[in-house]
């Protein structure tokens, strides 16, 4: 990353040197048990797609059962006219029709998506942090971590606003300052944010990237 000049002034980008206690934490990071456990706990559960698919299936099953039962009794609740369904299916609709291929492609794609949703582990919803007790798994919700680090950065004199996004391997701090001479400010933001991260002690090495922009008020 290099310094770039934006429209509103210079953007300071400093390379992330890693957390201060890198060597001390190497031991913790190399233990797979705690990380695997935390990943398992905070991995997305896929309950929302699961509930949607289950609800659709349940409704379809109930409607189908009611209709087939009424058809078995000889009085179908609603008639599917021969000319709308069975007629064309025997005569005009062929396997190689564009519609047939389009619909079956769409259904196959939905099936593929569902398998992907189920199989992909997904990004953890919380950033796992170290815990001394093996029976305790601790995580900081990703969004809250970003907000929390942003507030800390905004407390630094000279920082106007700071937005922080917590990614898998790094946190990105985008801060604005009204100062004309912001020498050392980006480093200061970096120190504060990296210090808080070190205190939280995430289970994965997490770098801090700072982008400082001058905003003329």
């Amino acid at each position, binding site marked *: 990353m290099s310094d770039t000049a934006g429209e509103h002034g210079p953007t300071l980008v400093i390379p992330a040197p890693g957390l201060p206690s890198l060597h001390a934490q190497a031991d913790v990071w190399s233990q797979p048990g705690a990380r695997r456990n935390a990943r398992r706990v905070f991995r997305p559960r896929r309950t929302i797609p699961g509930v949607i698919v289950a609800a659709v299936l349940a409704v379809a099953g109930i409607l189908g059962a009611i209709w087939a039962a009424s058809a078995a009794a000889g009085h179908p609740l609603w008639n599917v006219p021969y000319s709308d369904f*069975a007629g064309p299916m025997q005569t005009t609709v062929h396997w190689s029709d564009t519609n047939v291929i389009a619909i079956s492609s*769409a*259904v*196959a794609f939905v099936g593929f998506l569902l398998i992907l949703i189920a199989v992909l582990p997904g990004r953890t919803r919380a950033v796992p942090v170290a815990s*001394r*007790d093996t029976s305790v798994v601790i995580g*900081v919700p990703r969004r809250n971590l970003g907000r929390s680090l942003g507030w800390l950065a905004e407390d630094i004199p000279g920082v106007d606003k700071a937005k922080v996004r917590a990614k898998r391997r790094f946190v990105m701090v985008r801060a604005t300052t009204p100062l004309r001479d912001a020498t050392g400010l980006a480093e200061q933001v970096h120190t504060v944010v990296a210090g808080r991260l070190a205190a939280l002690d995430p289970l994965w090495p997490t770098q801090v990237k700072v982008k400082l922009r001058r905003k003329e008020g």
Partner: protein
Amino acid sequence: MSRHTAHVSRTGLVIVGLILLLGAGAVLARGLGASTSVLGSSHAAMLTPAQVQYPAKHSWVWPVTAAVCAVIALLALWWLAAQTSTKTVRSLPLEPERVHGRTVLPAAAVTGAVTDELESYPTIRTADAVLRGSALRPGLNLAVTAENRADPATVRTSIETEALPHMREALEMETIPTVLRLSFSRAFDRHLA
């Protein structure tokens, strides 16, 4: 919610996904004329006259269809219930032997004690606790909101070395698998409230 629900959701999604993919894939394969010898000609109509007449000539078709649909609906409802169940523990047995009667402790008493203790710490704003899983081996889900300016290490230590051991002592359990969600809120919120 527990890991169990994640397993149930993901397994069900794989099964439904596979059925859709294979079924639609077969239709697609026939439509594209992928293997005419196995699937039949791609230029044929989708239904033959014999297939259309089949339900009218065989009286078992509709009852069986109804039964299959009912089974699908029941399975889907069971899946729905399994995914949405929170498995909250409401009461804990204190006396393992039921010969002498049964003594239970409302789970709210335990979780209430934990949250009260946590909220009494100056660095913690709010705390929420739920016991989940089986009553004999419950797991604890904790959600704690701490002051943003507090040192997270202190917050964590006070939870791990005070509140949780107190709870284990009260329940006479060696360990309680705990998931702690630690959030932060701005310090002055408390004074505005």
